[in-house]
C-alpha cells in the first residue's frame, strides 16, 4: 500500500493545500510543520504558476506572492528534499503541466521521488493526454492523483480511475478552487456513489469550495477524505505577523479535524 492511500485507512483524512513559497519557502517549511503537528493527514503544496486557470482568486494571489518571492519549482523541490526527514505525513505537489514540461518530465519524476514526495496532481493534464509523465511517475513510485468532476461521463470515469493512484480527487462542483457560491453541493451523494462504482477500492477525496467546519459536517458522510485549500489560505492571510498566521493555520486545522470526527 502506498503512503497516501495508507492515510485513508481507518479514518477520513484531511488534506491541506498551501501554495509552495507563499510568501517564502521558509514560511512554507514552518507551515508544513504546524499543519502536521495539528493533525493534517496529507499536505499538498502548490507549484506557483503565472497562469493557474483552475484556481480561483485566493490561490491565484497565493501563487503570485510566491512568484514575487522568487520561488521556482527547482527551489521548491530542493526545500522539500532538505526537510524530508522532518516530515512524516505524505506530501503531494499540485501544479500545472507547463511547469513539469519545462522542468523535464523524466527528471521531475526522479527528483520529486528523491525529495520524498509521494504524489502529484496536475489539473490541466486530463487522462487522455499521452504524456510520458505517467510512466515516469510510476517508475519512481510517485502516485498520480487524477481529478473527476460532476459532469464526467461513465466512460471517462473508468479511464480516469484506472490511471489514478493514491486517491481520486473528486471536484465537488463545476468551477474553480475556492468557489463556494453554490453552498451545499447538489447531488453530492449520487455523484460520489457513481464515482465509487468505477473507482472500486481507490479512496475518494473531495475538494473545491469546502470553506469551513459547517460545510465539512454537511458533506463528511460521503467522501473518504477532504481537501481544503483556499479557506485555509484565507485564514493564514488574515494573520498579521508570522506567529499569528501559523496560529490561524493551526486553529483552522483543529476546527476541521473536530468537524470530521
Amino acid at each position, binding site marked *: 500500500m502506498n503512503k497516501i492511500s495508507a492515510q485513508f485507512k481507518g479514518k477520513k483524512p484531511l488534506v491541506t493545500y498551501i501554495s509552495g513559497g507563499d510568501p517564502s519557502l521558509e514560511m512554507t517549511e514552518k507551515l508544513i510543520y504546524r499543519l502536521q503537528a495539528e493533525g493534517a493527514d496529507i499536505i499538498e503544496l502548490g507549484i506557483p504558476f503565472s497562469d493557474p486557470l483552475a484556481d480561483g*482568486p485566493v490561490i491565484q494571489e497565493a501563487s503570485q506572492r510566491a512568484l514575487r518571492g522568487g520561488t521556482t519549482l527547482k527551489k521548491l523541490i530542493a526545500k522539500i528534499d532538505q526537510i524530508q526527514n522532518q516530515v512524516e505525513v505524505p506530501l503531494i505537489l499540485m501544479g500545472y503541466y507547463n511547469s513539469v514540461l*519545462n522542468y523535464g518530465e523524466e527528471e521531475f519524476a526522479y527528483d520529486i521521488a528523491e525529495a520524498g514526495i509521494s504524489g502529484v496532481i496536475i489539473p490541466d493534464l486530463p487522462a487522455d493526454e499521452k504524456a510520458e509523465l505517467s510512466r515516469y511517475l510510476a517508475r519512481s513510485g510517485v502516485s498520480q492523483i487524477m481529478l473527476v*468532476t460532476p459532469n464526467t461521463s461513465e466512460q471517462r470515469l473508468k479511464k480516469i480511475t484506472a490511471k489514478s493512484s493514491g486517491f481520486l480527487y473528486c471536484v465537488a462542483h463545476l468551477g474553480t478552487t475556492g468557489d463556494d457560491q453554490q453552498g451545499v453541493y447538489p447531488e453530492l451523494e449520487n455523484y460520489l456513489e457513481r464515482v465509487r462504482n468505477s473507482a472500486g477500492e481507490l479512496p475518494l477525496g473531495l475538494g473545491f469550495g469546502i470553506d469551513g467546519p459547517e460545510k465539512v459536517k454537511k458533506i463528511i458522510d460521503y467522501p473518504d477524505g477532504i481537501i481544503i485549500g483556499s479557506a485555509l489560505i484565507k485564514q493564514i492571510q488574515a494573520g498579521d505577523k508570522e506567529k499569528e498566521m501559523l496560529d490561524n493555520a493551526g486553529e483552522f486545522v483543529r476546527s476541521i479535524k473536530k468537524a470530521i470526527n
Partner: protein
Amino acid sequence: MSRGYFKEFGGRFVPETLMPALDELEEVYLEMKDDPDFVNELKSLLADYSGRPTSLYYAEQLTSYYGGAKIYLKREDLNHTGAHKINNTLGQILLARKMGKKRIIAETGAGQHGVATATVAARFNLECEIYMGAEDIERQALNVYKMEMLGAEVIPVTSGTQTLKDATNEAIRDWVTNVEDTHYIIGSVVGPHPYPEMVRDFQRIIGDECREQIKEKEGRLPDYILACVGGGSNAMGIFYPFVDDQEVNLIGIEASGKGIDSGQHAATLSAGRVGVLHGSKSYLLQDDDGQVIPAYSISAGLDYPGVGPEHSYLKSINRVDYQAATDMEAVAAFKLLSEKEGIIPALESSHALSYLEKLAPELAEDQIIVVNLSGRGDKDINNFKKIREAENNE
C-alpha cells in the same frame, strides 16, 4: 496525425470539467461542417451580413513605390466589424445555437474579437459577456463602447498582467463554472482541440477566395503570401489552402515590439520554447522556470505570449517562414499604406505590410505578393499619440 494534434503540437490541456464540453463541440462541429443547411446558412451570412467575398485589390501605388513584385491586398478590413474575426464568430455562433447554449463568452485583447462576438450574439439574441484586461479596456475605449452598444457586458480582468493572456484565463475559469449553458467563442487558432482546427476552418475562406481571385486576375498562384501572426487566425486562414502548393512561399510576421533583444516583444515563434498555455502545446514565451512571460507589442491584437499549435507545426516542417517586425517598422508601414493607397490598415496587419520593404524590391516585376490585410485601422487612431511620441524619440 493523432486526433487533436499537429504532430507534437496541440492537444487538450484543460481541467476535466471542460472535457465533456470539448467533446460535444467537436462532435457538433464535425457533424455540421458538411451539413448542407449549416454550410448554406453560414455562406449566406458571410455574404449578406459580412459582405464577402472581400476583394483582392491590386495595390498599384504601393507596387510602383517599391518597384519590384506586384502587390495585392486581401481586403479583410472590408468585412462587417472591420476585420477577419467575424468569419469565425459567425461560424461559432451557429454551433452555439445548435448546441442549445444560452450564453456566449469570449476573451478580447484589442477588442476586435470582442466586437465581432458581441455583434453575432446580438444578431442571434444570446446573452454575451466579454472578458477584457483592465489595461486593454483603458487602451481600447472605443471598442468597449461598441461592445456595450451591442448589448454585451464587458468584464474587466484585473488579475496577472491585465491583458489578453489574463482575459483568456478568466474566460476559461468562467467556462469551467458555467459550462453547461455557455459556449466559449475563442477568437484565434489557439486553445484546446477542436478550437485550433475549427477556427482555422472558419477562417480558411480567406485563402479559398484568394486562390480563386488571384487565378482570375493573374492566371496563376502568387509567389508569396504575407500575414501577421499573433495567435495566428488570419494567417492560418489565408495560408491553409496553399500549404500543399510548394511554389507559394508563406511568410508569417510576428511582432518584435521594441526588438527581440529588448525582451519587450511578442515574437513567440522566433524567441519562444515549446510549452503549454490555454489548453494546447505550442511555442510559448516563458522563463527558465516555465512562467509565462508577458508579451509586448504596440498592437494589442498581437500582444499574446502564445501562438496557435498549427503554426508551431508549420514552423517545425519549415513550410512557413516566420519573421518579425518591430513597432517602428509597423508604424512606418501603417503610414505608408494610408498615404499611398488611401487605406488605413490595422496596426496588426501593418506588421505584415512592413515586410514588403524587405521583400518586394528584391523580386522581379512579374512576381506576385499577396498581403492579408486582416483589419482596418480605425481602432488604432487612438494610438496615434503613441505613434507620434515614438517618432519624436527617434
